[in-house]
């Protein structure tokens, strides 16, 4: 069914970001997307995002490099993408979306490519500009962010075979689902903690009584 070589799989992302409608359609219906490549994109985005925060010149950067923890940020990006995908999947499942979870995840990963491509050059560029030229830097970064956001929008629209309006509604609902998921996770972790402390105190009691 899918006979793409590894090289073809990697190069296919560039086809997707230049032809998003066809590209995402083929990911859904002709299995041309690759989950490992999407994961790689998320990892690369996490790294370039963190590098940008850490190494962009102080002329354009208002983040204290002392507080940048790259490992934490990469994990954070992964968690954010996975959570958003899960929330989107749980909403679209109920709203007649055609996309599978792996399609959503692939869309998210592939859409990050513009940011992966521009964040590092922008970081490099920031070392060679003065404060009144910061517009160039923010233009490059801003365009890539807007482009990525549009790609995500188109991707979700295409893999679920939605109209534009319905996509926007599902995205709003996705954020609501996201909040519910986070709430349930926190509730669960707090409950587990309580059970743990209960068992812990029972153990302490037994040990000290004996």
């Amino acid at each position, binding site marked *: 069914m899918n006979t793409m070589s590894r090289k073809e799989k990697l190069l296919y992302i560039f086809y997707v970001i230049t032809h998003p409608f066809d590209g995402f359609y083929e990911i859904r219906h002709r299995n041309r997307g690759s989950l490992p490549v999407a994961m790689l994109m998320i990892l690369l985005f996490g790294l370039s995002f963190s590098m940008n925060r850490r190494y962009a010149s102080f002329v354009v950067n*208002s983040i*204290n490099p*002392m507080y940048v923890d790259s490992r934490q940020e990469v994990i954070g990006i992964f968690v954010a993408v996975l959570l958003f995908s899960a929330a989107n999947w749980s909403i679209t499942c109920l709203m007649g979306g055609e996309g599978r979870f792996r399609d959503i995840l692939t869309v998210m990963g592939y859409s990050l490519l513009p940011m992966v491509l521009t964040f590092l050059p922008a970081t490099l560029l920031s070392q*060679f500009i*003065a*404060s*009144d030229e910061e517009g160039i830097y923010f233009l490059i970064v801003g365009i890539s962010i807007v482009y990525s956001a549009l790609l995500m929008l188109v991707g979700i629209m295409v893999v679920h075979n939605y109209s534009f309006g319905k996509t926007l509604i599902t995205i709003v609902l996705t954020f609501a689902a996201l909040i519910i998921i986070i709430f349930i996770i926190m509730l669960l972790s707090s409950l587990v903690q309580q059970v743990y402390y209960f068992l812990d105190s029972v153990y302490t009691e037994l040990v000290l009584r004996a």
Partner: protein
Amino acid sequence: MKRKIISQAAKKAKPALTGPAMTGLTAVKLAAAILAAVMYTVFAGAAAFAGENVPYQTYNYDYWRDVYYTPAAYIPDVSYTGRDLGAGNLLNPQDVFVAEDNRVYIADTGNNRILRLKPDMTLDIIIDSFLNNDTADTFKMPSGIYVTGKNEIYIADTDNRRIVALSEDGALIKIISNPKSEVLEDDFDFRPAKVAVDYADRVYAIVKDKIQGIMCFDEAGNFTGFSGTINVSINTYEKFWRRFSTKAQRESSAQFIPTEFTGLDIAPDGFIYATNVDTDANQSIRRLNPKGEDVIKKDNSNVSQKGQLSGDFYYRQGTEYAGPSRIQDIVYRGDGIYSVIDTVRGRIFTYDHEGNLLYIFGGMGTQKGTFKLPAAIEAKDDKILVLDSLRAELMTFVATRYGDLINRAVALRYDGDEASAVALWEQVLELDANFELAYVGIGKSYLAAGENKKAMKYLKLGMDREYYSIAFKRYRDDILKKNLGYVLTAVSLAVIAVIVRKIVKRLKRRGDEYDE
């Protein structure tokens, strides 16, 4: 260093101890002497690191608005109670003033008198009455005092509802009371709390419960208007809720009234420095021009891009030592430097003319050099004087080498002499390598000298985006100018090569056509 001296002392002591003529008593004496020497070196060492035996911490905020601790800028010096001065205990004193001839005046509010100290801080005279139309008149809760360059004493005689001006020998010059104007209410209660006088004998007074601003009087004592009115600000959130609340709700909610001024001082150029309460911790310090407009400079070169002049940027919420700084009084110390005192945490904040924080020190407590309820701040030579109303003490703080270097460097920069300030800034950096203003100072002077690369390095360390960018642009232009010749040569050679190739090709083709 310390350890070295101790071991030397021990070595020297050793042969003496083993000597034959050694008796038990001398051994004890010697041991005590060694102990004393050790103690002395230890404590002398501690004193060298000024700040270790100071009852408060000295700190500052960096570009990231993080607190960092610095060496002590000022350390406690002598404290004077009324008894020390030989005038009996002070009672709730509210104001202190250092005249141009360095004589110190204290408004001993609760005892209804004014104390004058000689420049060496010994009691000169006590003023508790004056002759008013040949009858003796006294003060009632005098809580503000100001002395002009001509040694005329202006006293805010609060509960007598007047400002009294006395000459140097205590004779009455004038009384300002019961001001009349169409902008004042008929039942207006004139209770001046603080007073200041400018070089043209115009009088400025902070009046209790008067929220329109500082009251101004001309040299004859006539009310001329308000200065520095603080506008009320209502944010969008409050506006939104007021829109939906009923009239009864609106009346019962808190009113939006401007904050009151707390203290004032006048610079030699006639600009008024005044402090006010700001619960939003944005601006508690104002510099008013003769028109009464606030013209103070704020320092925006920090990560939030927001200039705040209100003491601490961070504070905890709660009951004790919590909430925004409440700035009580201000002193203009010359060369653009001014210090303010905060009554919440007892801290003294010192700023330069651009609104940069220079050093923060002071604290609450019962130790020497800490406050219970600071009421007024003044400066005398290189000393800072703080009057504590609850402890009824006048405390003095003396500049350390660190504080003195900063003061002198800032003064030189204020005069525009950045080049001579560099040597001082370098010494400051030896004591405190985090002091960003010093890096900026050095960087700017390198920039002026045309050493752009060095300027870039220092301005980056000082986190000054604006001047770093200037230095960087000049550096970039230099490199481009130096290498432009090579670049242009290479480009023009490439262009010529392409053209030549085209011509050759065309000629060749023509040759081929001929051949056919």
